[in-house]
């Protein structure tokens, strides 16, 4: 199975919102869509699911155009929405039935997922009585109740507290283990780094970086060194004309151009008999890469 987007473009009026975007997800895993607000992530997702028409390009699942009737997909939209006056169980059943699941099967699935997501006690309540986080979990259930092959999650973690974020993370990991293909957009780089095998960074509709996350990170040279020590090492840093990025609890983060200069610094400090608790040469984080690519 594989999801392929080939040279997909979309214009709203004269403005190009997505320009020539291509991506391939050919094995179970999470593909991360990154970008600032208005970069074209949601438009890409909407085109992928056929909510809006693409102007050009191809979007296929197993070589066939993506169609609601042919592809079993689940979708958590960025715009969270539930029927405020309708009981949670009734709306979940409604969406499951629209996805072709029989009422009895849907009920079993609802109770199973409600237990995992810890919303069992709210099933008989109207949605308006639930907190936003719980409403979001309910909506997440509508995306996965029918056991879809392809799951599209638009900002799944925004608005969730750490406890619920953790629950959702575990579910996503399980979904991948169970062979699901997931497209996920997110702002939080940490979550993307945790889950995504591949990423695509969009800036004003243009793909500015794309590929395997590990390879991307490895392609960037080390740019910082972390030194944890009980003593002041300012003079050694100054001696090598290096810049301190951050000092906290005797943990220094120093900017470097290459790994050699980091080793030079370590030698200088050790030579004077200063005890070092931790020494780590660091590659740029995804956050750094993201800012470098899309920051003005």
């Amino acid at each position, binding site marked *: 199975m594989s999801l392929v987007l080939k040279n997909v473009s979309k214009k709203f009026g004269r403005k190009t919102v997505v320009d020539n975007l291509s991506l391939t997800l050919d094995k179970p895993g999470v593909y991360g869509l990154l970008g600032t607000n208005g970069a074209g992530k949601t438009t890409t997702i909407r085109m992928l699911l056929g*909510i809006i028409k693409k102007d050009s390009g191809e979007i296929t699942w197993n070589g066939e155009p993506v169609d*609601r009737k042919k592809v079993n997909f689940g979708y958590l939209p960025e715009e969270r929405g539930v*029927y405020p006056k309708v009981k949670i169980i009734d709306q979940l059943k409604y969406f499951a039935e629209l996805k072709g699941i029989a009422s009895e099967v849907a009920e079993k699935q609802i109770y199973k997922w409600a237990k995992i997501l810890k919303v069992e006690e709210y099933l008989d309540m109207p949605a308006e009585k639930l907190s936003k986080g719980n409403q979001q979990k309910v909506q997440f259930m509508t995306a996965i109740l029918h056991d879809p092959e392809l799951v599209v999650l638009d900002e799944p973690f925004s608005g969730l507290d750490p406890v619920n974020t953790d629950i959702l993370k575990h579910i996503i990991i399980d979904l991948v283990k169970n062979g699901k293909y997931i497209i996920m957009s997110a702002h939080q780089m940490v979550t993307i780094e945790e889950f995504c095998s591949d990423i695509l960074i969009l800036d004003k509709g243009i793909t500015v970086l794309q590929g395997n996350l590990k390879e991307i990170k490895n392609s960037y040279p080390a740019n910082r060194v972390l030194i944890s020590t009980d003593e002041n090492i300012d003079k050694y840093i100054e001696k090598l004309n290096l810049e301190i990025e951050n000092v906290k609890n005797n943990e220094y983060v120093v900017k470097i151009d290459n790994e050699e200069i980091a080793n030079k610094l370590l030698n200088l400090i050790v030579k004077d008999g200063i005890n070092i608790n931790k020494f780590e040469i660091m590659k740029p984080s995804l956050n750094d890469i993201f800012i470098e690519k899309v920051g003005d």
Partner: protein
Amino acid sequence: MRDIWIIMKFTIKDMVKRKSFIISTLVILAFIVIGFNIPNIISWFGNDNIKSKILVVDNDNIFEGSLDSLNNMDINYEVTLNNLELANVKEKIENGDYDSALYITKEDNNIKIDYIIPEVSVLDSIPSDLVSILETLYKNVQIAKLNLTTAELQSISPNFEYSLVGISEEAAGNVIVMMLLSIVLFYAIYFCAYQVSSSITIEKTSKIIETLVTSTSPKNIVLGKTLGIGLVGMLQMILIVGTALISANIFMSPEILSMVLDVSNITLGLGIITVMYFVLGYLTYALIYAVTGSTVSKPEDVQSANGPVAILSVGAFYLSYFTMMNPSGNLNVFASLFPLSSPFCMPFRVMMGLATTTDVLLSMVILIISILLIAKVAIKIYSNAILNYGTKLSFKDLISIYKEKNK
């Protein structure tokens, strides 16, 4: 088809489970039952009323003792006869012993009757029932003195029967029934169709629409929702009209009922035609409202977006309502064929016997073709407008959306 059914089922369940729906329906039904019981309620209160105390003073015995019979008559007064001076009479009224008094005196050939009450306001006058009773009593006393035979008596004072006779009695009954039905139809169609608009806006503003459009097609959403709301509205209308008819038959006396309505005109055939026009009229307006509902992003904008449709529907209703006064005129014929007004007008013409089967069929064909055209345009605009979360779409925007979709 399966999805339309699921959406329709969900819409119906959602509507009938709502407290506001249940309460408003019960309130309307209660008002109808109470409304038809108003004559009964008034009479209950009437019976319970303490009769007004009246003092009748005939010091000169002008009525020759016949006033005693006042106590045997079915009148709303508790009559006390007494011989008193005027000053004493006034005193008794002032003290509240009596509510009013009749002070009878004779001046030359005239009988003078003073009706005395505590305070005289502009609206007060001598009760006409008392006036006619007193005049009859006096006349009877005088006639009795003439020793006339029964036949002579009857020839002097025959029973007069008054009745209002129109040239076409049945038609007059029809007009009232139909005008009422036309109003009921208009409100039923208007409010049900309006529900479609607000239901669509709720789905849009609560952002649920995005999940929905990935689960089924916009066409299914519009049709399922329209049919669901329409079915609930139709059942509600049947319940209301049914309760009104049953209440009219049970609670109103046949005489009063026949004065207000000619129930014999409400036949099964008219019922079927009315329901058909309700369905078609509802579909026409519901689909137009589906468009306006999909153009707004905030619930508070619904009213302003629906404004033009409201004006259109009220205009169409008045066109048919006022031309009913002259049903044979060309304007009424036009109103019965024009798709926006025919649902309010054609049932009226059918009942008046002014429309042939061909006219009805023609009007329905025009209506159905219009519905199909409106549905085509509405679904297209809805599909695109529903995911537009920006400002409210203008009419110009809607045309460009439609054109873009048609490319």
